[in-house]
């Protein structure tokens, strides 16, 4: 208990006949960056909304910062920060007016807001732009200001619902640095995203698909647990032709193109390497290099979701 910021048990939310979130159970350890991943409509936002007290669960329970979300939503609200993809700031207010307002509704005193102001401005990189109207800021700045407003009251847990949507790569990188700093100060960060490269920054991950959790663990664990067959990265000419050839062979489990490389999943590393090389070279395709690689999270997710869909279909047919 002491180690968990969030504990979720069989949390379910139904819209009419649609199971948006289907008996989800997980824990989030204190001070960790927890990534909640899934496609659009998989149930990410519904879950985060329930945990923030914006939405009542249909069944199941959850405690956030030690308080039950159904029974003591106000206690929960005092202890969390929330930021959505929309960066919900008042566009017709200036930067410092936004900070004052959000500080005010969290009950911070005037003095406290004045103390926090330079810190938020520094963090958002908005020093000297206090009097600018928020609508004049670029997306990256708005995003950091929104985060600043969400953590003014120094919450124990920060919920970030797709915080990097529509933000350029440089801003995204800066933003993740901020998240790391927060986590370093002991704040638990609960973040949803569908950028899989961002998932690599998380300490712990859950993958949600059609309302159900289908995989979980640290990025390393996930790669190890869910992908047992070796994956070879092949550098060769005529990648598309090569893929078509390989797909016809029954000893090749899966192929896909990653940039100018080919990823080939085989049963055994040594035997696979030899077979791939001989097949391609027999067809006049030069193989420049071939290595076993650590699978990316994308490999894991594609594989898990395909697996899950097949399981469900066969389950439904039976």
């Amino acid at each position, binding site marked *: 208990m002491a180690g968990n910021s969030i504990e979720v048990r069989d949390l379910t939310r139904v819209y009419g006949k649609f199971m948006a979130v289907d008996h989800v159970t997980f824990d989030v350890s204190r001070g960790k960056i927890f990534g909640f991943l899934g496609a659009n409509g998989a149930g990410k936002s519904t879950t985060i909304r329930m945990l923030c007290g914006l*939405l009542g669960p249909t069944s199941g329970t959850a405690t956030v910062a030690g308080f039950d979300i159904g029974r003591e939503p106000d206690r929960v609200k005092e202890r969390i920060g929330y930021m959505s993809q929309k960066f919900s700031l008042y566009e017709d207010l200036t930067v410092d007016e936004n900070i004052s307002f959000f500080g005010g*509704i969290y*009950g911070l005193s005037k003095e406290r807001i004045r103390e926090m102001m330079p810190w938020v401005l520094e963090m958002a990189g908005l020093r000297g732009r206090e009097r600018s109207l928020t609508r004049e800021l670029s997306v990256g700045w708005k995003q950091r200001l929104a985060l600043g407003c969400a953590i003014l009251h120094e919450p124990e847990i920060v919920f970030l619902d797709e915080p990097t*949507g529509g933000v350029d790569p440089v801003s995204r990188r800066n933003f993740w640095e901020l998240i790391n700093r927060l986590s370093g100060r002991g704040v638990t960060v609960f973040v949803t995203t569908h950028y899989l490269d961002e998932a690599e920054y998380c300490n712990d991950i859950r993958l949600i698909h059609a309302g159900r959790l289908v995989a979980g663990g640290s990025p390393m664990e996930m790669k190890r647990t869910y992908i047992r067959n070796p994956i070879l990265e092949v550098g060769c000419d005529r990648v598309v032709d090569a893929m078509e050839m390989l797909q016809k062979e029954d000893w090749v489990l899966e192929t896909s193109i990653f940039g100018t490389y080919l990823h080939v999943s085989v049963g055994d590393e040594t035997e696979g390497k030899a077979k791939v090389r001989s097949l391609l070279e027999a067809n006049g395709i030069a193989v420049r290099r071939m290595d076993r690689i650590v699978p990316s999270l994308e490999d894991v997710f594609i594989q898990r979701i395909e697996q899950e869909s097949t399981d469900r279909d066969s389950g439904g047919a039976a």
Partner: protein
Amino acid sequence: MNPKRVPVFCCLRAVVKKEFRQIARDARTLIFLIAMPGFLLLMFGFALNFDVKHVPLAVCDEDGSAASRAFMGNFTHTEYFDLKYELSDPREVDRLLGEEKVRVVLVVPRGFTADLAAGREPAVQVLVDGANASGASTAVGTIGTIVQNDAVRMTTRLLRDRGITGFGTPLASDVRVWYNPELRSAIFLVPGLMAFILMVILVITTAFSVVREKERGTMEQIMVSPLKPAELIIGKTVPYIFISLVSSHLVLLLGLVLFGVAIKGNYLLLLLTMTLFLVGGLGQGLLISTVTRTQQVAFQLAILSTFLPTFILSGFVFPVRNMPPVVQALTYLVPAKYFLVALRSIIIKGAGLGAFWDQLLCLAAFAAMMLGVSTLRMKKAGETGKIAKSGRGRGGRP
């Protein structure tokens, strides 16, 4: 780690401050709130005039005698009628009335003087354009009085000519009009206009205030904070009360300057009455904004729930007691009705609280109900995610 939560007042102040800033920065809303009521008063005040004065008149004097001219002088020498045409042929009457060149035609028949002299009660024909019923009936009343007075005058003279003096009319009416001795409709209409204008403007602007936050997603951000729904509602109301009181005073001032409507009663009572009414209107606007999701729908609801009810059911133009019972029952739902009774009492009659305390009570009840229901709606929306759902359809992300 957990912030010390300072008294409620702090959060409330943050909301009030923010609303003021937003209104101040939104010049359009500010102008709408402050200048629009005055402008509408100007428009309606001059357009809605039930006084029948300077009615265009045509006369057709077939008799052409001194007596007939004297009789017609009774009409043309008042401010009620303006002589536009003198006709020689009664057949022109049709055309003039049809083309609305005149509204009243007076025809004095040939033999008027002779009949008078012989004591045969000559008939004078009066033709009135009845298309505008209310104007026409007032004109008919005025004409009747003028003819009657002249008849009495003639009889008296006739009797005197025959040597009969020292008599009086058996019955005399001594009519004294109180509160509005000149019977100017402006005095009756300005308070009504004030209610109507303030209601429409207020409900529209406040209806937008919550819906706008829903549309922009800031409502969601507020809902995850510990801010209580009541704090949000009150915080949103305070600045609008303040501003609408300013515009109310502008309307009062214009009423005085342009229409000569002075306040006879106690100013503090007037202020209390206005504040109660304004809070009710704001409450209604907020309620609308908690049940709608887009500014368009909020606008339509605001117009629908204020414009016609306030115009028709409040007693602004049409007296409530002349309405059929079912419609009368409906008028109890219109806060402007209570406001109007109290407002007219204060402004026109200078009456004290004793005359309309029940109206104020109704206004207060209405305001409390509106604000209460809005707060409950807001709370419910926060817990069941009605508001959150409005943000669900934001798909189409890359």
